[in-house]
């Protein structure tokens, strides 16, 4: 009789133990059920590219002085600068400028070394085409205003990780004035000035 009771109590203990063990595992699973998936639903939600993102290159025709520095610093000598020397006015005249994005590495050398800042990066990265010759952009195509993610009505823009406020990992539902951690240089200056006082 006693042995039987002991067997029952042993079995009950084992059941309770195994249920606790399964419960510990399931608690991790159910914890995930309450979380929002981190997937960026691409065409409907897009990440806002960061400030220094190296997207499509933008060219201002009027600022170019045809010095060809961009061609010399390019790893593949890519930009095609079609200029001629105007003997009457004794100046270089730029006829045409083109960059083939089928070969551009987006390294940024040309942007960095341009003396007149006519080359800059935009935030466009959606450059897929059906024919690769459409990627050879002339100065008109390079000078177009870029597509902005924040101005597209069909898209919900999401901030990237570094732009989220402290402790927040979910970019949805953020108030628009939520600031990233850290201070702008003006604020550091202001603080140091007030500290000095």
């Amino acid at each position, binding site marked *: 009789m006693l042995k039987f009771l002991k067997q029952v109590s042993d079995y009950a203990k084992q059941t309770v133990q195994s249920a606790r063990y399964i419960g510990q595992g399931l608690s991790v699973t159910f914890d995930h059920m309450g979380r929002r998936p981190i997937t960026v639903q*691409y065409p409907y939600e897009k990440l806002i590219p960061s400030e220094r993102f190296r997207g499509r290159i933008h060219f201002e025709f009027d600022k170019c002085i045809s010095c060809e520095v961009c061609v010399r610093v390019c790893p593949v000598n890519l930009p095609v600068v079609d200029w001629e020397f105007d003997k009457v006015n004794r100046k270089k005249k730029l006829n045409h400028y083109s960059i083939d994005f089928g*070969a551009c590495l987006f390294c940024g050398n040309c942007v960095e070394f341009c003396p007149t800042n006519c080359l800059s990066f935009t935030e466009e990265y959606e450059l897929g085409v059906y024919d690769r010759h459409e990627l050879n952009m002339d100065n008109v195509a390079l000078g177009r205003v870029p597509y902005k993610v924040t101005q597209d009505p069909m898209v919900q823009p999401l901030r990237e990780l570094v732009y989220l406020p402290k402790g927040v990992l979910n970019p949805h539902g953020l108030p628009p004035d939520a600031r990233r951690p850290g201070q702008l240089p003006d604020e550091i200056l202001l603080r140091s000035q007030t500290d000095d006082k």
Partner: protein
Amino acid sequence: MRNSNNINPDDSFEKQRIISPVEYGVTQQLSENVILTTLDDLYDWARLSSLWPMLYGTACCFIELAGLIGSRFDFDRFGLIPRSSPRQADVIILAGTITMKMAPVTLRLYEQMPEPKYVIAMGICMITGGPFCVDSPTAIRGADKILPVDVYIPGCPPRPEALIDSIIKLRKKISNESMQERDKIKQTHRYYSTKHNMKSVPPILTGEYLKAASRHQPPNEITEAMGVPIPPALKSKEKEKVTEIT
């Protein structure tokens, strides 16, 4: 002579002409029929919603492609399930650089894919050779020198979102296809190729070296020197030479 357009060649351009005369009317072609249009839509929808890409990646662009397999940028939302075998794949996303050594391998993988198949060239190495387009002795200047490409994505490497954008563009391309034109898409003449002056050379590695007898058993002189007893019939003739050496 009356031409079918009913346009009198003597008419000057100042005179008005009907641009689309009534005879053309609504086309009588079968594919414009309502029933087949819906069938075409269904066929195209079924194919574009489940494009299974082959897991192909030679270089850095594959890391961005692998980012799409993860959960942050998920390409399973578009029905893409990566397949390891070309026989099971619909689309090959060429990610990386093709060199002279890898080119026949890539072409073979492409040929092993069953029709209908599509190619997405990801990254500038696959469009024009990219950073290797100027001085490289071995890189192939673009995948479209060896196989036909449907969508090109620039970038070094392109962002995962740019790759998803190109998948959307490929889906748009597929949605325009018609079932009736299925057999017109042949593999020849879809891509540009040119006559070259290269001569075909027999392969260097033929397997002869690996099958050479000396690789399986040391020559008789060495086995004798090692002290392994061998039958007298197989003993080497130049025994004196061996003793001279030792």
